[in-house]
């Protein structure tokens, strides 16, 4: 490799410090601005004041939700890039996020009484359906990794167009930007508790299985000689991707580029060990989405930019850089 210092522990510590900073900024910034000190004081010693309610009922759940969704997407990104051996793979570029959001929107229209937890099932179904299709394309061997990425992006565009069509057909036009861009503005505690178990279980299983996943990163022949084991590991990885991405979309719509970008950033920082990459992604993902949400709240204050638009603005150029790296390697 090169002589870059690789201290995963140091990077993790730095990431956590930054994460704490983003959290502090997230609870103090808003229409009624609080000083960081005051906000933190209310965070640790809540009282009966309206400011305290604001910090605890609005800003804290939002900051936490951004971090959980970021962790989900980043871990799912690591798994999908490992599983497909494709640096351009991610829950978004392979259409998995869009599959989940299409299923959610369709079910919400068909069953208006559907609330919170009820959207998780459809999200998993949609994510799994697209995931299966992409998996079938990838193992059929007719497409190289670039073509596969292009097919995935096309599927994503089609599914997003279908989401728009359904929303327009049902007079829900004002929700379109929200649903296509992914926004954390409606974050509340129920959403946090909805996604938390999936983050914990998904992240936990991914970490404990890290050793097995490194098998997937080996080339095809080695993987084949290890036989059944690699197949089962791949299956577990696929299920984790669906759970992590599906639950993320269920709480805040399809947010792109986190899952694509974070694994690359982490690999650049800390090298190739998958356990290290997973742990650091679970820190850098929340950091990136938390920062994107914060930026979206600050930049057009008092209006709000959906976090998904911010990640797309960062992510599209990054996608080009990854593509470039793929060329020169």
């Amino acid at each position, binding site marked *: 490799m090169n002589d870059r210092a690789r201290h995963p522990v140091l990077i993790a510590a730095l990431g956590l410090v930054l994460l704490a900073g983003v959290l502090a900024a997230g609870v103090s910034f808003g229409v009624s601005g609080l000083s960081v000190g005051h906000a933190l004081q209310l965070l640790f010693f809540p009282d009966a004041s309206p400011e305290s309610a604001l910090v605890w009922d609005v800003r804290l759940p939002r900051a936490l939700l951004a971090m959980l969704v970021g962790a989900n997407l980043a871990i799912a990104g690591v798994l999908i890039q490992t599983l497909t051996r494709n640096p351009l793979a991610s829950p978004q570029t392979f259409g998995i996020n869009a599959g989940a959001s299409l299923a959610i929107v369709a079910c919400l229209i068909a069953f208006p009484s559907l609330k919170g937890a009820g959207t998780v099932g459809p999200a998993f179904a949609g994510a799994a359906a697209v995931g299966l299709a992409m998996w079938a394309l990838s193992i059929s061997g007719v497409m190289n990794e670039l073509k596969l990425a292009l097919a995935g992006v*096309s*599927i994503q565009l089609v599914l997003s167009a279908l989401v728009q*069509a359904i929303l*327009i057909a049902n007079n829900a036009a004002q929700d379109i930007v929200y649903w296509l861009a992914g926004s954390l503005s409606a974050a509340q505690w129920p959403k946090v508790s909805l996604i938390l178990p999936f983050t914990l279980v998904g992240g936990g299983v991914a970490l404990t299985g890290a050793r097995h996943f490194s098998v997937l990163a080996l080339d095809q022949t080695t993987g084949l000689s290890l036989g059944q084991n690699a197949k089962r590991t791949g299956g577990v990885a696929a299920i984790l991707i669906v759970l992590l991405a599906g639950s993320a979309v269920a709480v805040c719509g399809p947010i792109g580029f986190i899952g694509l970008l974070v694994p690359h950033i982490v690999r650049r920082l800390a090298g190739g060990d998958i356990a290290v990459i997973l742990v650091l992604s679970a820190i850098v993902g929340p950091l990136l989405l938390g920062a994107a949400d914060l930026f979206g709240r600050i930049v057009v204050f008092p*209006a709000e930019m959906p976090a998904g*638009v911010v990640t797309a603005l960062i992510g599209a150029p990054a996608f080009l850089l990854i*593509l470039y790296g793929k060329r020169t390697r």
Partner: protein
Amino acid sequence: MKDAREHREGRRAAFVCVLILLLLCLVSLLGMVIGAVKLSVGDVMAAFGGGKNAFIVMEYRLPRVAISILAGAAFGLAGVFLQGALRNPLASPDVVGITKWAGLGAFSAGLMTPPAWSAWAIPLGVMAGALFGALALLVIGRRFGGSTTVLALTGVALGMFAQALIQYAMVLFPSRAEQSMVWLAGSVYGSTGADVSALSLWLLLCLPFVLIAAGRLDAGGFGDDTLTSIGLAPSLLRGGLILVSVLLAGGAVAAVGSMGFLGLLAPHAARLVVGARSRYLIPASALLGALALSIADLAGRVVALPNEIPAGIVAAVIGGPYLVFLLLKEKSRND
């Protein structure tokens, strides 16, 4: 012998084009008949002469049908020229993001100038945006080695970036969000006679360039070395074809917004039915583009009554799977 075969080919292509034209007439007629107010074919015919339905037909449905045909044909032609220029079956203005940049240009121009200027500011913005998108694609795509798929992916990413910028602007200026939906998705809803005239005029101005480009399109299929050896400057030829493509796509976007995948679909479908020779390919692409957009608009109007699905969304839903199919069908060269 060879003459006889060419003659047969020409006859067959002409026959196919007439068939598409008939289909187009049928779809257009349906477009005049179907709507919130059901009319009979007789009513529509009578309305051309005036009468109680004249307003609906002349002011509302006719412009819409006409703009679908014109813009669809422009997208189809733009696709043929761009694919030919880059020798890349995936390079159509919609896939590589040029239409999205054109939409962004339109939106920016609308923001930066007073409403009174919009008649000329928006078309200028569209062209500036489309040219910028094409230049960015070529500059970046060349750095990346320019394989078929890499170029397409580069364009897709650039298009995503333009789309994110449009969404960004929509949040920033919510009062304009309603009209900017058109730049995002594409729609022929609310087209007026003035739009039809403007697009017709634009296409007429482009016609000489289209004819020149049509004559050179077959040459574009050669490699650069071959071109040089027969005395054509490759960069000039390709640059010219790209420019014509951008002019056509820009005009269409200015009229109906950024439609997905039409420019990809029409040339491929045309190649299937009339072959790859430009003298047949070009008219067939224009006709199929017109047919595709007319069908997309008709489908969008009837599928979710009383609401309308914008034609651009219907086009994306039809065209996207076609791109996946193309990727599947093409032998996986390691590019």
